[in-house]
C-alpha cells in the first residue's frame, strides 16, 4: 500500500529565510508524488508533481522538491519565504495503477513571520 508521512505538523520561518517541509513516502513501485497547497477558504492548488522524469522538480511560486529514492523522501523547499506562503501544505502520492486517487499526508502548516 502507498502512503506518505509528513514529518512536521507545523513549521515557522521568518520572511526571507529558507523553507523546508519534509515528506517521506512508501510505495511498492515507482510513485507519482505531488505537493498541494491549501490557503484558508480556498481550494487545493497543485504546487508541483514528480512522475519519474527529472528528480528535481520545479513548481510554482519558487517552490521545488527533490525525489530521493534511496531515502524515500520528497521534501519541499523554497530559498526565501514570503508572507503569502503561509498556508497548509500536503504531500500526496497517486495510486497511478488504479483510479489515480490521491493519498494525502496529514499536512504541514507553514507560518511566516515578518
Amino acid at each position, binding site marked *: 500500500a502507498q502512503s506518505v508521512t509528513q514529518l512536521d505538523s507545523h513549521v515557522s520561518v521568518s520572511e526571507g529565510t529558507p523553507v523546508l517541509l519534509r515528506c517521506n513516502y512508501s510505495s511498492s513501485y515507482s510513485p*507519482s508524488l505531488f505537493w498541494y497547497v491549501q490557503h484558508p477558504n480556498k*481550494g*487545493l492548488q497543485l504546487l508541483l508533481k514528480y512522475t519519474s522524469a527529472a528528480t528535481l522538480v520545479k513548481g510554482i511560486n519558487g517552490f521545488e522538491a527533490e525525489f530521493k529514492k534511496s531515502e524515500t523522501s520528497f521534501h519541499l523547499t523554497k530559498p526565501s519565504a514570503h508572507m503569502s506562503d503561509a498556508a497548509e501544505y500536503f504531500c500526496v502520492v497517486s495510486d497511478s495503477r488504479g*483510479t*489515480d*486517487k*490521491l493519498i*494525502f499526508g*496529514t*499536512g504541514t502548516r507553514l507560518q511566516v513571520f515578518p
Partner: protein
Amino acid sequence: GAGVSQSPRYKVAKRGQDVALRCDPISGHVSLFWYQQALGQGPEFLTYFQNEAQLDKSGLPSDRFFAERPEGSVSTLKIQRTQQEDSAVYLCASSLQANTEAFFGQGTRLTVV
C-alpha cells in the same frame, strides 16, 4: 467560470437528516473524485467516477454514503441519516482524463449538530 464549483459552501444538518452535496466539474473533464477532509487532517478518498461510471467507491465510510453522476458531468454526494462524525469538508476534484492534473473545488463544509 472555469473552475470546479461546489454547492452549498456550508451546510448545517441536524443529526438524522439527509443531505445532498453538489459538484460541477470543469466542462469536459472525464474523471471526478470526492474526498472527505476532517478537521486538522488531510483529505481522504471517497469515490471516483469516469464519466457516469462509478469505478471505485472503496472509500465510502458506510452505506449511508451514496454518490452519483448520471450524465457524466454534475455529481451529487448524498449522506443519509447524518451523524456527528460526518462533520467534515467534502471536496470534489475533476481531471481531464487519467494521469492528468486534478483540480479541486473549494469544498462544502458540513456540520452535523
